[in-house]
């Protein structure tokens, strides 16, 4: 294992390379892209959750000032192809504009193109759509019933995906265990809600035959999918990655937006831009996250050892499929959490309803699953009258058991869960925390301590795709980096994706600096567009520290080898006799016998006569690599290695509740975190702070609520409540480092840190607070009203 001190730049506190640009207001976002003669789009959205479109009258809109064009589904669907459908459900087609029927309130029905967004909005109001309302279904359990209205009648049912995986002797464990519990945990529909909504600008050039796209994206294979839907060859779409993305954490997919705008610019021959307003984003932007309930069953013994777990997860993906059902698939890779549970049954069920389609959200389904597992652990402890910390420690995989293969087939790389939890408890001074809680309780208020210990699978081997759809035989999850050293000796790293605040420029410059022993401040990082880029799977699944970091390191090592080879050739010695130091190469034991960086660069670029035979001139290297442990197909019983690396986090939180109003207040918060070697600790901590705040939102505030008639009831920030600085308490983060044996520097991913455990920890704290009343809440978000109702129900029950 590598000692942290052996690094020069990795792990050092250093200002992120991107900060000066953002702090001084020099970011360049989609809304900053102004193309000459650019037109703007406004949309007409369905007011019904389910209806037949009888007629669309566009004449008045076309006559409105500044209007260029009105597009309806009829024309659009005839000239483009459906967006990709991840699971095997070919009839669940999906287009940006509805044709014949609408399947959710907010679905786009027509697009107006005008000189300005305001004029387009004015004209959109003049479009008259006649609807014939059809029966709809909002509740996922109702949607599974035989007589339910069908969201996609051609598919034959509302069930999109269902399978029962049995990994290990589940029934035997349930038959023999001393105790069993069963309960339902409910994860409310929430998301990441970036300040920047989705936006895309596009320009078709009839001369070159290239469609240029600038978009606020975080989407694997985006250029390819846009090209396919537009029936273009792949090399006719050029996506520019040098656009700053104003927040994403999963939701900035934007395929339907880009295909729509691409079609419009091609048809009209003028540049077109569409930037969602907030309502379009929240209601019709297809960015709502998992909406899921878990029927949990656990079999365990009196000593707290958990023998088996059954999880039935029913996820409501809304009206269309896309990649969202896969959010039930990723958790397979950490289905038993950090616990050595020998037998697991997992029954993922993906259901369609007449709600806004679901999209990827931070963790890709892992945070809801962690919440269900961590509630289960607390319920086991409560059932046995044991301390929940004891139950966790009793079941944790021990550090000497790694690499550890879980029943579903993934192997965890490394970890020391006991150490991190102990460190976290020490940091919060657990003994005094318990006393503080008990003191609050004595004063007549409610207080509870919540703990969650869980995993962040990282590295983005998305093999759940082939697991859930054997027809989708994809096992390649590469990433890449190109490194160039120019004639002046300056280093440039070229990456192949846009960034939504993850700090990829800091990552790559740090890694290149580390390997080449050059100051990262002097290293530039730029982005190739999609026609010049090397293959990438984009920054999803906490993969970039591992994959882009690894690719940059690989390319830098090649540069280093090249420099050494040049020196060896000129010293007429073997590379083994040389050593690389601060960018120059000298003969071992004779530090004055050396070639400097500048000399070597000069030879590479200008002195072919001094270049070793066979070496390519110039100084550049590309490195493309497959995700560690990737490449395998699932076994028949559905065992498969998915993500390579597993970070661990332990949350300890104290929540106080006003018993008269039900208002919860987070009093203390400490999070212990082990993501291996941190390349940039400030970025990791920033991610973790934000992740915890995001988790507080999912736990207590945020919900895309629907009325019975299928209307989104939280379409503004007055009703979709994101925690503000006032709701997020002081957070303390405790670092720990168990390096990963699979990665270049021992790093693991951390883009989902904090979010993966915060909802569980807070829910456990609220339940600990309610425990003396005999009440419990297992549904998120835990609203003030829900707490008050739980308290009231118990008080009522007590007094009768």
């Amino acid at each position, binding site marked *: 294992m590598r000692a942290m001190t052996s690094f020069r730049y990795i792990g050092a506190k250093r200002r992120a390379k991107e900060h000066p640009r953002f702090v001084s207001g020099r970011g360049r976002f989609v809304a900053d892209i102004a193309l000459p003669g650019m037109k703007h789009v406004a949309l007409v959205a369905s007011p019904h959750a389910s209806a037949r479109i009888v007629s669309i009258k566009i004449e008045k809109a076309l006559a409105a000032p500044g209007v260029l064009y009105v597009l309806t589904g009829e024309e659009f669907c005839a000239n483009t192809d459906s967006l990709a459908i991840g699971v095997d459900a070919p009839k669940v087609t999906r287009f940006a504009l509805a044709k014949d029927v609408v399947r959710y309130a907010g679905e786009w029905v027509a697009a107006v193109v005008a000189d300005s967004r305001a004029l387009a*909005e004015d004209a959109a*109001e003049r479009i008259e759509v006649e609807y014939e309302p059809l029966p709809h279904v909002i509740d996922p359990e109702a949607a599974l019933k035989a007589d339910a209205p069908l969201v996609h009648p051609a598919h034959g049912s509302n069930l999109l995906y269902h399978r029962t995986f049995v990994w290990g002797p589940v029934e035997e464990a349930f038959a023999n265990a001393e105790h069993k519990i069963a309960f339902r945990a409910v994860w409310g529909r929430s998301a990441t809600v970036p300040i920047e909504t989705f936006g895309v600008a596009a320009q078709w050039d009839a001369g070159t035959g290239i469609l240029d796209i600038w978009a606020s994206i975080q989407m694997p294979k985006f250029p390819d999918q846009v090209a396919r839907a537009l029936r273009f060859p792949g090399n006719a779409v050029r996506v520019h990655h040098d656009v700053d993305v104003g927040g994403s954490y999963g939701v900035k997919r934007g395929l339907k937006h880009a295909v729509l705008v691409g079609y419009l610019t091609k048809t009209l021959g003028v540049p077109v831009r569409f930037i969602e307003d907030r*309502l379009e984003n929240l209601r019709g932007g297809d960015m709502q996250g998992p909406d899921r309930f878990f029927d949990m069953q656990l079999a365990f013994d009196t000593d707290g050892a958990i023998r088996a777990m059954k999880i039935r997860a029913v996820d409501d993906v809304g009206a269309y499929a896309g990649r969202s059902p896969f959010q039930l698939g990723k958790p397979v890779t950490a289905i038993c959490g950090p616990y050595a549970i020998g037998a697991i049954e997992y029954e993922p069920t993906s259901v369609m309803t007449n709600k806004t389609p679901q999209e990827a959200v931070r963790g890709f389904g892992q945070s809801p699953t962690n919440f269900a597992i961590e509630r289960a652990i607390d319920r086991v402890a409560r059932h046995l009258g044991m301390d929940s910390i004891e139950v966790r420690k009793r079941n944790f995989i021990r550090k000497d058991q790694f690499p550890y293969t879980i029943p579903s087939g993934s192997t965890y790389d490394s970890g020391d869960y006991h150490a991190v939890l102990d460190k976290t408890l020490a940091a919060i001074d657990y003994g005094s925390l318990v006393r503080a809680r008990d003191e609050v309780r004595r004063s007549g208020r409610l207080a509870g301590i919540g703990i969650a210990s869980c995993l962040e699978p990282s590295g983005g081997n998305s093999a759940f795709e082939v697991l859930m759809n054997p027809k989708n035989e994809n096992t390649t999850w590469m990433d890449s980096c190109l490194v160039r050293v120019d004639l002046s000796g300056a280093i440039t790293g070229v990456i192949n994706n846009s960034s939504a605040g993850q700090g990829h420029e800091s990552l790559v410059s740090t890694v290149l600096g580390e390997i080449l022993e050059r100051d990262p401040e002097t290293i530039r990082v730029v982005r190739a567009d999609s026609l010049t880029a090397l293959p990438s799977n984009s920054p999803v699944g906490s993969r970039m520290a591992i994959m882009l970091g690894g690719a940059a390191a690989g390319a830098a090592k090649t540069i280093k080898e090249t420099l050494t080879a040049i020196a060896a050739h000129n010293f007429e010695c073997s590379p083994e006799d040389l050593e690389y130091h601060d960018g120059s190469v000298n003969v071992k034991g004779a530090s004055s016998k050396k070639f400097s960086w500048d000399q070597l660069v000069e030879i590479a670029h200008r002195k072919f006569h001094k270049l070793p035979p066979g070496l390519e001139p110039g100084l550049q290297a590309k490195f493309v690599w497959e995700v560690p442990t990737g490449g395998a197909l699932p076994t028949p019983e559905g065992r498969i290695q998915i993500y390579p690396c597993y970070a661990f986090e332990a949350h300890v939180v104290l929540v106080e509740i006003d018993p*008269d*109003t*039900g*208002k919860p207040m987070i009093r203390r918060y400490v999070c212990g975190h082990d993501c291996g070697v941190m390349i940039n600790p400030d970025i990791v901590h920033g991610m973790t702070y934000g992740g915890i705040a995001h988790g507080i939102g999912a736990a207590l*505030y945020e919900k895309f*609520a629907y009325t019975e008639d299928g209307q989104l*009831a*939280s379409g*503004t920030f*007055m*009703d979709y*409540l994101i*925690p*503000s600085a*006032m*709701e997020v308490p002081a957070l303390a983060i405790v670092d720990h480092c168990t390096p990963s044996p699979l990665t270049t520097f021992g790093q693991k991913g951390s883009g989902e840190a904090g979010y993966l455990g915060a909802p569980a920890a807070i829910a456990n704290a609220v339940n600990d607070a309610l425990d003396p009343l005999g009440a419990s809440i297992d549904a998120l978000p835990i*609203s*003030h*009203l829900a707490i*008050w*109702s739980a308290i*009231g129900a118990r008080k009522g029950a007590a007094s009768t």
Partner: protein
Amino acid sequence: MLATHGESAKLLAGGQSLVPMMAMRLVRPGWLVDINEIAVLKFVAVEKDVARTGACTRQCVVERDEALAARVPLLRQALKWVGHIQTRNRGTVGGSLAHADPCAELPLVAQVLGARMLLRSAKGARTLEAEKFFSGPMATSARPDECLEEIHWPAWSWRRTGSAFTEISVRHGDFAMVSAAAQVAIDGDGRCVRAAFGVGGAGGTPLAFPKIAARLVGTRLDDAAVSDAAHAAAAETQPGSDLHASAEYRRHLAGVLAARALREARERARSL
């Protein structure tokens, strides 16, 4: 302008409610009449039994005025719950009252203290009691051609006068689910000589309970009396339900918060 264009003209004060509603296309004025530069609408004057504020006075100015805080402390106490520092820097007192959100803080203060609204139109001026001014959710009895010019806030003269404002919202700075305001005056013995209290968010307009408050006069405002009054008031409310709070929850909160406001006001009065 208002006389000529009637309903299609709207006054623009701080814009903190009007502009978002325009952005959502919920309000579409043909004319916007900016009153931000009209000096006579922007002042604070503290007199013997009354404090007067111009309608277009910024909420932050009212919040920071020491003389006003000394005579009508409830205003400052309420204002700290109104939105955020940023919105109070723009938002005006008159805009908040004219907007008449049933959950808003300043309309509740106006109801509880019995503030009077001076309304002016091209035809002349008239004064309306708060009780008559607020006519329903987001509705007032001001006519489309009238501008709210001044608000007169009664100042109590008892030396031992205490007041308090409290509320509960899901997040800090949100409109309250329920709010409560109270003001009490006590004599040298600690007996109540006058009381006023009310709740917001528990009906179509903020509610004051003068009859129930009158029953507190003569008591020592002990917890039981306060609690009775608060519960009697809560029983009179007819709140609505929404995503965040059911009617039953709101009615319960009305009782809890009214009692808290009354107790806190009493403690302030006792400390004088």
